[in-house]
């Protein structure tokens, strides 16, 4: 079965500094990869996804993630964070076929002024 490992449970970072949230998944022939964000007391919002094609995917608010098949990773990066980026971030993976999304345990990003 698929599994997702988010290596850091908490990441504190100063405002305007760069950040990387790490995500590794168990190997599979073909996978679809996602990052979701959860703000306090809210549900999950899709941040970005990799389905096929270019291995670098971007979101509208400056985040990007790169699919690395050889390292089975899908790390999330942002060159300069804002206070408003403070949230919990979840990496998720799905294999082709009748399998649901499998989530990592989340990384809490805290941006410090």
């Amino acid at each position, binding site marked *: 079965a698929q599994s997702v490992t988010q290596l850091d449970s908490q990441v504190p970072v100063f405002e305007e500094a760069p950040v990387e949230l790490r995500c590794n998944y168990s190997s599979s022939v073909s996978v*679809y990869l996602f990052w*979701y964000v959860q703000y306090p007391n*809210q549900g*999950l919002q899709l941040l970005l996804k990799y389905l096929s094609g270019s291995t670098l995917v971007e979101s509208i608010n400056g985040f990007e993630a790169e699919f690395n098949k050889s390292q089975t990773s899908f790390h999330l990066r942002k060159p300069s964070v804002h206070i408003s980026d403070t949230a919990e971030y979840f990496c998720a993976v799905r294999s082709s076929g*009748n399998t*649901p*999304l499998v*989530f*990592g345990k989340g990384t809490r990003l805290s941006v410090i002024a």
Partner: protein
Amino acid sequence: EAGVTQSPTHLIKTRGQQATLRCSPISGHTSVYWYQQALGLGLQFLLWYDEGEERNRGNFPPRFSGRQFPNYSSELNVNALELEDSALYLCASSQGHREGGYTFGSGTRLTVV
């Protein structure tokens, strides 16, 4: 367009009682997914319904059950509630089970006392 709606927002039950949680998917979405988000455990997959049928089930005991109605709305039933069932229950929907991600509701916070 209305998003995924869940009701109630909060639910308090005593141990041994039954809880019923409801979910209305986005119009046109036929697949509904239920996840449990307990503190420190990330999102655990519970159930997946599509076109009225249960397609997949996570590693939860049979007292967790549900159904999907002809209008694609869904309910999750938890029988014989235990204290450890206290969690945020998230419902998500998708347009069929394609490679895209899911759209999540804001969740039902279930507290068992």
